[in-house]
C-alpha cells in the first residue's frame, strides 16, 4: 500500500496567502461597494454574537466593532480592519490542521475507526471486534483514481447523509490505497469528543457555519483555492449539508466547488508542476442512517423552521453512536462507498491518463475551455460559474448512476407505497401523522409492490442507471430489510405482525426517498 502524505502549509503562509487574495478582491471594489460588503459582515456578526452570547467570542466582537468603526473612515482603514479579521479567520480555519498528527492518524486509521464507533471518548478507545474491511464495501474505478492521483490533484465530491460520512470516506480512501484529503468540518461536529479527536487529525479544517456573511465565505473559498492550488487533494460535500429528506442530491452548492476551476487556471498561468485537477464523484450508501429520525423530522418541519445546523441529533450522543457502530455498522455491507468515474472540472469523463473525453470517447485538450484561439488563458468569472454549473449537473447525474440500492431502501419504498394506497386521500404530511394503530399494511400487497420495484430496479441496473446490492427474491429482500430495521431505530421502519406489516411512515418515507429520483412506476392496485 503506498504511503501518502498531506500537503500542510504553515499558518504564516496561509495567513499571507489569504490576506493577499482577499486584499486583491477588496482593492477591486469601489468605496461604496466595499462599505456595503463589510457592512454586511458587521450586521450579520453583531446579530449572531448578540444571539449566541458566547464569552469565547469576545475577541471576535472586538474585531467586528473595529471593522464597524472603519466603515466611517476611508478605504485604507476599511481594508486594514478587514485584513485583521481575515487573519483571525485564517487561524480559526487552519488551526486544527497538523501534518504530524495527520501522519500518525493515517497509520492508525482502521483501528481508530473501530474505536470511534465503539467508544464514548478518546480516553476509552477499546476494541469492539469491529472489522471495518468486511463491513464497509468500497467500489468503483479505484485503480484509475489512484493512478490519476500521482499527476493530478483530486477533489472528492461525495453525497452526504450522515456526520459519519467523512471518517468512513477517510477509511475508504485508506482501504483503497487512495491519497487522503483535506475537508471542511463544521464546528458542531466537534461536539462528539471521539469524533473531534479523530477529525482534527484527518486533514479537517474548521468551518463555522454560523458565520453567514460574504467576507467569511470568501475567506473559506480563498483557503480552498490556495490548498487545491498547492496540490492538496480535497473533499467537498457539494450538497452543502446532510440530505434531510434522504433524497440523493439533485442541486448542489457551487461555492467551494467553484474554487477548483480558479485553482486550475492559476496553476496553468503559473506553469505549476501539477496544475491539473480531477473531480471524483462518490456515493455513500448506508443500510441504516444514524441520524435518520432527526433528519426526516427536520425535513418535514415547516420550511421556515428547518435548521441548517443541527446540534442535537443522534450524532451528538456518544452512546447512540456507539450503539449504531455495534448494531448497524457491524453487519455485512452496512455501508457501501462507491467512487464514480473521474471527471474534469466541466464534467467530462477522463481517460486513464487524465485527458478529457467527449461522450463518444474522443479525447481533447480541456485547456481550450479557458483559453483563446492563440492558446492564451482568458479569465472570465461568469464563464467559470457556468462551467461549475455544468460540473454540478454531471455530479448529480453520477450520483444517480452510482447510487447503490440496498434492501432497506426498496422495502421502505414498498411499505410507504402500500401505506399511500391504503389511505389514497391523505397527503404526505397527513400520512406521517397517522397514529400507531393506523400504520399497518397488508404483507401480501407489500410483497407484490416490492416485487414490482425489484424488477424495475434490476432492469435499471442492466441499463447502467443504478447499482444494487440485493437478494434474489422479494421475499428474501423483505426479510433482510425488516431484520436490518429492527437493529437500531427507536421505532422499526417496517415490522412484521402476522399477516401485516407495521410501518413507521417517517422513516419509510426517509429511506424510500433514496429512490425518488428514478421515477419508478408502480402498477396500480387492481
Amino acid at each position, binding site marked *: 500500500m503506498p504511503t501518502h502524505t498531506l500537503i500542510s502549509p504553515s499558518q504564516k503562509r496561509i495567513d499571507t496567502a489569504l490576506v493577499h487574495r482577499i486584499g486583491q478582491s477588496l482593492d477591486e471594489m469601489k468605496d461604496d461597494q466595499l462599505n456595503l460588503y463589510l457592512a454586511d459582515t458587521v450586521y450579520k456578526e453583531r446579530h449572531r454574537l448578540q444571539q449566541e452570547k458566547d464569552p469565547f467570542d469576545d475577541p471576535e466582537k472586538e474585531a467586528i466593532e473595529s471593522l464597524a468603526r472603519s466603515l466611517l473612515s476611508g478605504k485604507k482603514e476599511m481594508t486594514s480592519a478587514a485584513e485583521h479579521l481575515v487573519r483571525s479567520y485564517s487561524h480559526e480555519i487552519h488551526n486544527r490542521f497538523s501534518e504530524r498528527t495527520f501522519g500518525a492518524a493515517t497509520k492508525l486509521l482502521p483501528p481508530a475507526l473501530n474505536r470511534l464507533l465503539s467508544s464514548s471518548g478518546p480516553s476509552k478507545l477499546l476494541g469492539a471486534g469491529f472489522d471495518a474491511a468486511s463491513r464497509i464495501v468500497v467500489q468503483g474505478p479505484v485503480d484509475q483514481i489512484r493512478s490519476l492521483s500521482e499527476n493530478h490533484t483530486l477533489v472528492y465530491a461525495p453525497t452526504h447523509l450522515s456526520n459519519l460520512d467523512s471518517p468512513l470516506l477517510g477509511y475508504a480512501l485508506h482501504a483503497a490505497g487512495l491519497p487522503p484529503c483535506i475537508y471542511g468540518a463544521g464546528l458542531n461536529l466537534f461536539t462528539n469528543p471521539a469524533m473531534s479527536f479523530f477529525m482534527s487529525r484527518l486533514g479537517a479544517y474548521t468551518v463555522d457555519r454560523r458565520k453567514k456573511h460574504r467576507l467569511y465565505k470568501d475567506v473559506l473559498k480563498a483557503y480552498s483555492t490556495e490548498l487545491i492550488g498547492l496540490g492538496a487533494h480535497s473533499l467537498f460535500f457539494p450538497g452543502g449539508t446532510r440530505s434531510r429528506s434522504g433524497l440523493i442530491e439533485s442541486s448542489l452548492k457551487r461555492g467551494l466547488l467553484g474554487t477548483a476551476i480558479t485553482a486550475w487556471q492559476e496553476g496553468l498561468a503559473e506553469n505549476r508542476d501539477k496544475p491539473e485537477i480531477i473531480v471524483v464523484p462518490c456515493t455513500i450508501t448506508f443500510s441504516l442512517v444514524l441520524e435518520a429520525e432527526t433528519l426526516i423530522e427536520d425535513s418535514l418541519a415547516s420550511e421556515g423552521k428547518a435548521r441548517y445546523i443541527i446540534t442535537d441529533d443522534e450524532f451528538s450522543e456518544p452512546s447512540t453512536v456507539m450503539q449504531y457502530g455495534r448494531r448497524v455498522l457491524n453487519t455485512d455491507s452496512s455501508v457501501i462507498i462507491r467512487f464514480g468515474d473521474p471527471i474534469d472540472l*466541466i464534467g*467530462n469523463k477522463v481517460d486513464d491518463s487524465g485527458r*478529457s473525453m*467527449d*461522450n*463518444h470517447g*474522443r479525447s*481533447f*485538450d*480541456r*485547456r*481550450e*475551455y479557458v*483559453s*483563446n*484561439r492563440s492558446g492564451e488563458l482568458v479569465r*472570465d468569472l*461568469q*464563464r467559470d460559474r*457556468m*462551467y461549475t*454549473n*455544468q460540473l454540478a449537473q454531471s455530479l448529480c447525474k453520477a450520483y444517480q448512476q452510482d447510487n447503490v440500492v440496498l434492501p432497506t431502501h426498496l422495502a421502505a419504498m414498498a411499505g410507504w407505497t402500500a401505506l399511500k394506497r391504503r389511505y389514497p386521500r391523505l397527503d404526505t404530511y397527513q400520512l406521517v401523522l397517522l397514529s400507531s394503530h393506523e400504520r399497518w399494511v397488508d404483507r401480501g400487497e407489500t410483497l407484490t409492490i416490492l416485487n414490482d420495484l425489484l424488477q424495475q430496479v434490476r432492469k435499471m441496473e442492466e441499463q447502467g442507471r443504478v447499482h444494487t446490492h440485493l437478494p434474489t427474491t422479494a421475499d428474501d429482500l423483505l426479510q433482510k430489510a425488516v431484520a436490518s430495521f429492527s437493529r437500531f431505530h427507536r421505532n422499526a421502519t417496517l415490522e412484521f405482525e402476522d399477516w401485516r406489516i407495521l410501518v413507521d411512515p417517517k422513516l419509510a418515507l426517509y429511506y424510500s426517498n433514496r429512490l425518488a429520483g428514478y421515477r419508478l412506476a408502480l402498477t396500480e392496485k387492481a
Partner: protein
Amino acid sequence: MNIGIIGSGAWGKALATLTAKAGHAPRIGFRGTRPSGFPGTPNLRTLTEESELLIIAVPAEGVADAIQQAQPGAGTQVVLATRGLQPQTGHWLSDLVLENTACRRVGSLAGPAMASEVVRGRPTALVIASPFDGVCSATQTALHSEHCRVYTTHDLQGVELAGAMVSVLAVAVGIAHGVDLGVGAKGVIVTRGIAEATRLGTALGANPQTFSGLAGVGDLVSCASHADHPSFSTGVKIARGGSAASRVIEEARSVLSLAERHDVDLPLTQAALAIMTGKLRPKLAFNDLMRREARPEPF
C-alpha cells in the same frame, strides 16, 4: 471577428448579410452548391476551427449532421439559429451539441427576423440566449447593427421552447385564417398560445418573461402575419383540405409530450395536433376550445 455560418439556405444567407452589415466578413459552410455573395467552404471542420463564433442555420432535421461534421471543440462558441426541438427525441437542439461534442458554450438565436426582409435591408431584432455572457456578447458583436438589434438573455431553454411552440402556434393561426374565423380569433390564438408556452416554460424552469419577448410574441406575430411564412401557409393549406408536413406534427407531439411529463395543460396545441393529424375538423376543434370552462386570464 471570424464568423462561420453553417447553412447556405435563405436563413444562412440572411444571417451572413446581417454579420456583413455589422462589419464582419463571414464565411458560409455549405453542402452542394456554393452560395453566391459570400466566401464559403464545404469543409465544416475547417470552418469551425477557424471561427470564433459558429452559427448553425440549417433546418432542425439537419442540425445533428451539421454538428457531426463540424465537430465544435472545447474552445468553440456555437449559436443555433434554428427553431424547434430535436426530431424523433423531442430534446433540446442545444443538447445535440452538449451531448455529442466537447463544446459547452452554446446559445440559441431567435426572433421575428424574416430572411426575405433581412436581405432587403428591413429593420429587425433578434435575441441570443446562452448561459454564457461570452456567447451573448460575441453574437451581439457579430450581428448587432443599425439594421438589426440583438438582445441578450440567459434563458436558453425558454428561447428554445418558444421556438418550438411558435412553429405549432403559427400553424394554428394559419388554420384559423384558412377557415375564416376572423382577426379576433387569430388574436386569441396568439395570446392564449403564448399563455400555454409560458405555462410550460415556467414548469421547465424557464423565465416566463421570455415568452412575451422577441422569441415568443415577437416571433409568433411575425410568423402569423406573413402569408408566405411556411408555418402559417401550412395552416392555411390544412384548413383547405391539405396535409401537414410531418415535421410540424412531430414538433407538436414533442411539445405535448414535454407538457405531459410536467403535468401542464396545452389545449390549443392539442387541438392543433388533432387538426394536423386529421382527427378533428378545424371548426369542430375551435368549437371545443370555445366550450372550455371559464377561467381567469393569467391561467
